[in-house]
């Protein structure tokens, strides 16, 4: 299953952005989304360090709700 991670942009510096999710911060390349207007506060799907898709806050929350369910199920099994 090709899951990418929804993250929120905190700061943009050229084609790089500092993004956060679940209190964890990552450097993410915005290179593949050039031409799309992007600013701090926006949400993106991140795969192997690249933002591959801009999404809405609602979509990010929906995805994380499912991921949280999945993580809870895994932790229960462990």
């Amino acid at each position, binding site marked *: 299953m090709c899951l990418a991670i929804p993250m929120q942009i905190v700061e943009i510096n050229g084609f790089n952005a500092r993004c956060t999710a*679940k209190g964890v911060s990552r450097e993410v390349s915005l290179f593949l989304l050039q031409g799309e207007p992007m600013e701090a506060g926006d949400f993106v799907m991140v795969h192997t360090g690249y933002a591959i898709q801009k999404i809405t806050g609602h979509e990010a929350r929906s995805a994380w709700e499912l991921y949280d369910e999945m993580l809870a199920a895994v932790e229960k099994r462990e």
Partner: protein
Amino acid sequence: MNPLSPAGGLTFRLRLQRGCVTGVEVVSTRPQAALLLKGKTPEQAAQLVPLLFSLCGVAQGVAAQAALQAAQGRMPEAEQQACWAGTVRREASVEHLWHLMLDWPQICGLSRLEKEYACCRHKCLQAQTDRDHAAALETIMASELLGLPAAEWLAQDRRAWAAWREDSPALGAKLLRCLGGVGGVGGLTTAYLPYTIAADWVDMEQAIRTPAFCSAPTWRGEPRETGVLARQCEHALVSPLRAAGFGIEARLTARLVELARWACGEVGQVSDWVDAAQCGQDAGLARVETARGVLIHRVQMENDAIGEYAIVAPTEWNFHPHGTFVREAGRIAEADDAAVLRKAQGLALSLDPCVAYEVVLEHA
């Protein structure tokens, strides 16, 4: 599980004795995310699936829509099916290009073609027609990957192809030269998943409903390889590499062949890419061809909500406990650990798992 890695990952444990791999184990922490769709309405599922699986979100979204419609007794109309097939193929081309322009150069110590990839990705995803898509691919194939027009490259005989491979400054040739040292692992032993349509999977729906099948699928009781090599294995530029046992090179060449054929407008039939079938009362199944291989979605409706949802993804075929990766990695024999590691990583990348992976060497 890492809170930022809900996708899980794959660990390949290779047991070594004097440079020879004597055992291979695949450890997967990939969750069966399809189980989360139980209880959702079809509308919720159609919105959530592309978000959950955003790396191949188009293919996953199309599979979900087609399966849900089939479960409700509706088969896709020809126009919709053609539209789905086009968008699925455009996404597959972008996945192939990512593989060739970003992933392989890193393994081979070459520069990633980020700028060129970003430009071509945008054009492919924005293409409204197969003609626009083909034009975008032709440009990137001729300028970066092949160094000559796609039709001319495809028409080469073996001698011309060998000369291109040895001398061309194009990225495709550079990658194949780099693979000269890692291409063969001494024979390909896993059969390919044959061409199927959705109806072929209906007989197997009882198996598809089980988590055990979804995590280790088989065809007629055997693991099979799915993906670009299965699709292009008969092509004249691919079959000699396959016959010689150069699996990694064969898969890379098959990707170039597939992209070149699309650039030439050879896109096959609509039903090659997506179709669906009803399987019993309130149940539907969709088959979608993706860059990495066949993707199956099966859904059972119960009182207007999803009662069961199962997904069989390509990675589960290729990284089956007795599948292609395990069999080919089990034949690796090299002089030192570094060479074993390099070949195993190349083999994994050639099969393109859609999640993070690591290779671990364990000495007997």
